């Protein structure tokens, strides 16, 4: 019994099918109290379906899903009062002002802005100068902050955020993650989904999801530690040609562009760097740089995808 209550979210063998498409193919995970849990994957991976089932907006096709120990199907009413949910595209009323939006959401949850002001203060202060502006006229970053305030206004135990950083610039994204970490410190359990791989590092634990299946679920450091092979960054004066040439070399396994460099793995455990350099020189590459590097989450994601 005690063990059970530790988990805020319990998902076991969840499947979701729409007409013909199987969007979620048997997913299991648990989230503990106070954890910041990330669901990382591209569009169409099944993130939104999972979140909509968790927030009781959809039925699971099969499997057991519990939130705060309530079943999402039979006890959905108990769940709804205790979660804060921010759907994709920050669902705000565009024709209401910042303050009116917040007041409205406070009211429908049976509370007031004043009552939970402490919780949203850090965030709200940043948008307060614009409190009379219509939500439709805010920038992406400000909309995101307002939507977060609205989701928090009733002081929920769990926060479910569906792609809160999509389409938002890097500065706002960074600020947003800082806010989430402060909220976590206040004891709120947070589930967040994102297509941005680099955001995985901000989470306590992540599930890498692709095509409705969780490929890996662990702490970000552990996911990286599990990469399991050596990785090199390669660069030359002609990066486009370099991609083609590296792929034609027999002992090279994968070649992926990564910024200025290409990330390269070998079919064997190790790589003969001298040989590689020589071969590239034969193909008229100059300014060749080869460094052994540590994988990041994105490398891991691609590695898991190709497995």
């Amino acid at each position, binding site marked *: 019994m005690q063990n059970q209550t530790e988990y805020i979210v319990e998902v076991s063998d969840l499947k979701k099918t729409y007409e013909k498409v199987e969007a979620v193919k048997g997913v299991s995970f648990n989230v503990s109290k106070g954890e910041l849990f990330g669901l990382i994957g591209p569009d169409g991976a099944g993130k939104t379906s999972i979140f*909509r089932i968790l*927030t*009781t*907006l*959809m*039925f699971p096709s099969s499997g057991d899903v519990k939130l705060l120990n309530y079943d999402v199907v039979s006890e*959905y*009413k108990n769940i*709804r*009062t205790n*979660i804060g*949910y921010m*759907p*994709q*595209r920050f*669902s*705000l*009323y*565009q*024709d*209401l002002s910042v303050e*009116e939006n917040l*007041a*409205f*959401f406070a*009211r*429908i*949850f*049976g509370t007031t802005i004043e009552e939970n002001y402490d919780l949203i203060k850090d965030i709200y202060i940043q948008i307060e100068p614009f409190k009379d502006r219509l939500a439709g006229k805010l920038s992406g970053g400000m909309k995101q902050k307002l939507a977060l305030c*609205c*989701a928090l206004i009733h002081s929920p135990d769990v926060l479910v955020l569906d792609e809160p950083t999509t389409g938002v610039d890097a500065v706002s994204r960074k600020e947003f993650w800082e806010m989430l970490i402060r909220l976590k410190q206040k004891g709120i359990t947070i589930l967040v989904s994102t297509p941005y791989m680099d955001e995985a590092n901000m989470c306590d634990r992540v599930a890498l999801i692709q095509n409705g299946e969780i490929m890996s679920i662990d702490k970000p450091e552990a996911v990286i530690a599990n990469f399991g092979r050596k990785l090199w960054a390669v660069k030359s004066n002609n990066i486009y040609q370099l991609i083609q040439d590296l792929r034609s070399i027999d002992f090279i396994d994968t070649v992926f562009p990564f910024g200025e460099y290409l990330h390269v793995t070998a079919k064997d455990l190790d790589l003969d760097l001298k040989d590689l350099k020589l071969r590239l020189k034969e193909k008229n590459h100059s300014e060749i740089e080869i460094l052994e590097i540590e994988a990041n989450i994105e490398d891991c994601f691609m590695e898991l995808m190709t497995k």
Partner: protein
Amino acid sequence: MNRFIGFVKKEFHHIFRDSRTMLILFGMPIAQILIFGYVVSNEITDVRIGIYDKSKDHVTQEITNKIISSGFFILHENLNSDEEIEAAFKRGIVREVVVFEPNFAKNLERDGSAAIQIIADASDANTANMVSNYTQAIINSYVKTELMAQGMPYQIIPEIRMLYNDELKGVYMFVPGTMALILMLVSAMMTSISIAREKELGTMEILLVSPLKPLPIVIGKVIPYMVLSFVNAVVIIALSYFVFGMPIQGNLVFLMLETLLFIFMALSLGILISTVSNSQMVAMFISMFALLLPTMLLSGFIFPVENMPKVLQWLSSIMPAKYFITIVKNIMIKGSGIGIIWKETLILAGMTMFFLVMSIKKFKVRLE
């Protein structure tokens, strides 16, 4: 309760901040009524009438004088038989014939009441109504000033007959028809669109996840439109009364109650539509094609139902607007009470119940 008030307030914000919504809500009904009000004139002067006096006593003489000296009418000819009435109308000059029953003064003295028949050429329905109303008014004032003044409970019972168009398909059809249309538009279409908009924007997801139950969501959505529809109904009735003199013979409160019933019906229909549409576009199309067009075409608003093919007649009998139009017409023009139109009222109430139950059943607490 606090939650609920917040919800309703928000809904009013949406409405008042959208100029297009405001235009549809208030501009359209006023424009429709006014356009019609000006297209059909509402003044009558020098209308030529015929008098068929079967009694020829001092009372009929006095009434005839009153009518002719009013300035609205010119006595074109005196008629001497029923056949001549028909012939007079056929010639197309006489618009109205007033027929006094035989022994008019005697009947009045003996029974306290006598009958006048007012026959109007209703091929121009508007004029026919005006003319007969004016004539009635003159007769009523005669009864009041001349007969009642003597302290006698005299009564003259006018019987109005509309020739060529006894159902009065014309101007007075327009007010009930417009009312049905506008109320349908505002209540059903606007409600369904505003619910669909929340789905489209994704705010419905948050509302569903909130502790707000479906019923308050729906009622909160509906109340503003109910208030606005009611205001609209009042505006339409006031305009038609003041601008082009449509009578309200029946009980005004009763009329408003029936209107409220129709608004309820339209609102529940709107909710039903919104449960099956996920976007504003869909809601709009369904409202347009399933509600507005049939209301216009099949309710008898534009085309008389009895001239329709059987299939369409059958279809028209499931149009709520048809019953509402009958009700309004009866109350406003004939002054009928519930005794006459209980059947229509019952049908409307039944439809309301049906749509309400259906939409509550179909309203989803989830996204699928």
